């Protein structure tokens, strides 16, 4: 019977794949940094822009003759704000080489969006019962809750901003109904713009 050489030499020394080991180390460093780091893709300049549109929205909403018109104005503002925030965050994340959906970002989104979803559900329920006066307080308190919750994995100034929104929301529940637009302007206009400028200055945009 002729000798058939083995296809795999069992005595061949194992050459360690130095390149893949180095790549694995770099990946480990990046993943550790991502999970240990803060979510810093919140765009300060985006917040300043949203603050400006919110003040315009408050003026327009205050002039609406009907409650439906008032609500529609704020809902349009919400859509505009989401679009600005999204574009600004993507731009900042790209500029700084940050990921929006891994590491600390993965923890940020569920914490931030859950109170906002609750706010949407409560808005629908309150509008269905004609309780429009409660909306400014509900929006401010739940946005504040979202920011505080999401801010747990972000920089401290974000949590402080959330706390201010929460306090403003509580004030909206205590103030006369006519103050709603002014308090919404103070929150989504003033607070976002002031904290946005601070975030932009200290945290790179």
């Amino acid at each position, binding site marked *: 019977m002729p000798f058939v050489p083995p296809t795999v030499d069992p005595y061949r020394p194992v050459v*360690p794949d*130095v*390149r893949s*080991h*180095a*790549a694995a*180390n*770099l990946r*480990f*460093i990046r993943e*550790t*940094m991502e*999970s*240990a*780091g*803060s979510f810093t893709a919140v765009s300060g300049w985006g917040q300043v822009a949203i603050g400006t549109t919110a003040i315009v929205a408050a003026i327009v909403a205050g002039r609406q003759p009907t409650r439906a018109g008032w609500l529609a104005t704020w809902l349009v503002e919400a859509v505009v704000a989401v679009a600005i925030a999204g574009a600004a965050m993507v731009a900042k994340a790209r500029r700084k080489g940050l990921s929006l959906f891994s590491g600390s970002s993965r923890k940020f989104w569920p914490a931030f969006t859950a109170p906002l979803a609750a706010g949407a559900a409560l808005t629908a329920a309150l509008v269905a019962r004609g309780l429009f006066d409660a909306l400014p307080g509900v929006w401010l308190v739940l946005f504040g809750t979202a920011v505080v919750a999401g801010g747990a994995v972000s920089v401290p100034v974000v949590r402080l901003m959330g706390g201010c929104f929460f306090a403003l929301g509580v004030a909206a529940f205590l103030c006369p109904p006519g103050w709603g637009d002014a308090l919404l302007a103070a929150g989504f206009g003033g607070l976002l713009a002031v904290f946005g400028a601070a975030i932009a200055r200290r945290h790179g945009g």
Partner: protein
Amino acid sequence: MGKTQTKDQRPRAQGARATRGIELVGARERSASPGRLDRVIHERVRLGIVSALAVNESLTFNELKTLLRATDGNVSVHARKLERAGYVACVKSFEGRIPRTTYRLTAAGRRALSRYLDHMEAVIRAARHG
């Protein structure tokens, strides 16, 4: 009779096997041979500690333990090694009656991480072109 390995020797030996071909160097030789791989930082848990501290001003012992999914003993031993090398600074305090250990990365530690990253990138580049 086999020699008993300590907790700290095991991963280092594994790391050394896996990186045969990469020159390792101890803390004392580091400054003399900047092109060599820093042994202090090369171990997985220590690399994790340094990486985590690089993106935080400071982290507590428990935060590091949770983040790296390591045991108390493991974090403690490796953090002490980094502290001895001058890469991390440790502050022990009390929060009420509970002891709290906080770590932060020193300038030397930041430089060591940067050197290590450069080294890894150089290894990848060399392997690609070689």
